[in-house]
């Protein structure tokens, strides 16, 4: 197609269509609404169905059920809507439902500033629902990445039979940028693992805990069952503590143990650097400028930009911290991902959070000032 001038929300919709999404349900909310608009137009053009639901709970209900019939589904919202998604995300985890959930974050809490950016939902997404099971979440820094990571989110959703979050914010969603989507290299599409014909269908079949069970569509070759309640591999309810624990271990292991496999990040290390900036999303672009400016002044400094936020890319983060004395973590919240870095920082490594939530971007100057680089 060539170069275009696109907002992140359109890039997300296009990435979603590129991943062959054929079902979308959503509810209007600034600054995510234009995803709903794009999807309502694009999905039927690809032979699928897209609908504006009566609320966010229905959006999730429609999507989860449609996903279990074999559709590739996505929904999109912002903070207040994400709060309403909460219970249903648990359902999607319980039923091992592949789906993509986009959150174009806005400044909060509650209604907050509808048209202004922030990234206050980072830990909320990690702990989005009761039970505390792990989630997968990706954070794009550019309009191109919004496209690419949405596409990849569909792959992860299929590969791990799990909801996958795209965590952008207003500063990506409705910021426009020159981009050539076709020039972005994408991995092959991951097809849903379906049960082999003629075998018995066990909806949550696994041998090893990290195995991802093959699926059969509702309305397909096998009788399918899906349940919100504590169940065994056959999706029948169980009260057996050993079986219950095995299921929980499975849900946990299939994601947590794959953390390093699904880790997406960008390293820019400088030999001899003792300072490292770890960033993600739109603020990683401020970090890039801060690094450039610091280096121009002769300061040695390294940068790690995370695209996968959950599960935590432990290996990438730990190895980036080798030889580092100070880690600077800029973010558009009051220090949420900073907590993860503190957890992983070896003793003696200073972690400096540069966080604010006043609706403006954290600037390269602020990173350098609070980070002690000036």
């Amino acid at each position, binding site marked *: 197609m060539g170069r275009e001038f696109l907002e992140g929300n359109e890039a997300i919709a296009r990435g979603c269509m590129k991943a062959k999404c054929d079902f979308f349900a959503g509810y209007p909310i600034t600054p995510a609404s234009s995803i709903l608009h794009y999807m309502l137009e694009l999905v039927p053009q690809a032979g699928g169905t897209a609908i504006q639901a009566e609320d966010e709970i229905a959006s999730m209900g429609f999507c989860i059920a449609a996903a279990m019939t074999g559709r590739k589904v996505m929904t999109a919202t912002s903070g207040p809507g994400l709060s309403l998604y909460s219970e249903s995300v648990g359902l999607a985890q319980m039923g091992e439902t592949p789906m993509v959930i986009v959150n174009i974050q806005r400044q909060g809490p509650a209604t907050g500033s509808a048209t202004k950016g922030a990234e206050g939902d980072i830990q909320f997404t990690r702990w989005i629902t009761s039970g505390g099971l792990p989630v997968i979440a990706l954070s794009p820094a550019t309009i191109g990445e919004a496209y690419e990571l949405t596409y990849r989110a569909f792959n992860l959703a299929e590969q791990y039979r799990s909801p996958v979050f795209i965590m952008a914010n207003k500063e990506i969603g409705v910021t426009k940028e020159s981009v050539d989507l076709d020039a972005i290299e994408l991995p092959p599409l991951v097809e849903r693992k379906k049960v082999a014909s003629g075998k018995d269908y066990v909806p949550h079949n696994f041998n090893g805990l990290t195995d991802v069970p093959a699926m059969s569509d509702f309305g397909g070759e096998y009788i399918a069952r899906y349940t*919100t309640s504590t169940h065994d591999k056959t999706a029948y*309810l169980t009260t057996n503590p050993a079986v219950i624990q095995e299921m929980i271990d499975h849900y946990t292991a299939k994601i947590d143990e794959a953390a390093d496999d699904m880790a997406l990040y960008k390293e820019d290390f400088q030999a001899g650097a003792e300072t490292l900036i770890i960033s993600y999303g739109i603020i990683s672009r401020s970090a890039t400028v801060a690094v450039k400016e610091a280096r121009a002044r002769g300061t040695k400094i390294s940068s790690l930009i995370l695209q996968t936020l959950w599960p935590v890319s432990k290996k990438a983060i730990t190895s980036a911290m080798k030889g580092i004395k100070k880690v600077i973590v800029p973010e558009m919240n009051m220090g949420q991902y900073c907590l993860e870095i503190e957890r992983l920082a070896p003793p003696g490594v200073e972690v400096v959070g540069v966080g604010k939530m006043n609706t403006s971007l954290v600037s390269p100057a602020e990173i350098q000032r609070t980070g002690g680089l000036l």
Partner: protein
Amino acid sequence: MSTTKAAANGYTTYMTDKLGPLPFCPGCGHYVLIKALDKALVKLQLDPKNVVIVTDIGCIGLSDRYFTTNAFHGLHGRSITYACGLKLARPELTIIALKGDGGCGIGGTHLLNVARRNIGITLIVGNNFNYGMTGGQHSVTTPTDGLTSTTPWGNVEGPMDLCGTAIAAGAAWAYRSTMFDKELSDVMALAIDQPGFAMIDIWELCTAYYSPRNELKRKGLDDLLASYNLKVGLLADNPRPEYSVHYKEAYEAGKSVIKPKLPIEKKYDNSVSRQTGIVLAGSAGQKIKSTATLFAQASMFSGLDATQKDDYPITVMTGHSLAEIIVSRERIDYTAIDSPDYFLVISEDGLKRARARIEKLPETCTLYAEESLDLPETKARVIRLPWAETAKKISKLSVAVIALATMLQDTGLFSQEAFATAISQFQKAKIAETNLKALEAGAELVSN
């Protein structure tokens, strides 16, 4: 679609006894309901693979797993949403949602909306006037004065007429009945056969809570109906196109308006030597955002990279509207403009929003301002322009084009042709025509 006259496929039941007997208390209405549903399915002889029983939470929600059909058991009060999701994704499937009166309360909006949309699912409500599963609390259908664990002195709330509510919302087919209705299974088969949304509200006894507390027995149900002046039987039968059918038709009829997207290829040169930040501050309704986009697209026609970040209040037709455009030969990282190179202020709203920034503009910045504005002190080089006057002669909606054309002419960042190309390529012919005039007029303001 299923049909009542289907040849017998040999299904004698759609229930399994593998899980033992149904888990309900003796005499519970849900038992009757489930058995009637089994009979209805036998009557219809549907392939169990093409049927989904959807439930949510409550005693009624324990029932899906006793069926040999597909089963979907979801969150409290949300069975309609899953049923709709299944039906939207696979319209050929038969989807039957079961719900309690409790579920109809917490998920009331879904009842209204499925009725309104006419999504072809069947909804069967096991209405026992209280929350059985959680210990007999009152629900949206608990009769006034009814005793429950949460109405110890009698219910002071009025009950909701489920069918009446759904019919008011547009339900194509609705039926009210009681657990003692001998025709329950026939009625269910009829409901399942409806192409659109069909619901049955079945009044029941909860033998653990509501019935003993209120001495409600078989006759009591009839008395209750009579006291509300409510009819049993078919209450609505107004068929209209099912959602998915209508959806397809609407798309087929409307798809011809879809326009192909066009790429932006480099056609012109530019004289941009470093990353350049331009702020355009005006009012809502002055086409600030869309004009900034055209300008950015023009920069792309000139081989540049661009970003655009907007600032506006939630009510888009009033107050300020600001656009920040960055153009650059290299990749743009930081998308905010802390130190603008060019600042254009078109209106009072824009000035109000940008005043603090204007006061801090560096001397390297050029401030282009509508001449009628009362500007604050600034170190920027100021150029005042009769934009509003000029726009009056062309179109008020073109003032942002005029302003950016002026700046472009003054700076020579890239060519006016590039701006004209963006306008012609991305705007409707009539609007483009006006804006091309505006472009010329804007450029003239500084060229002479």
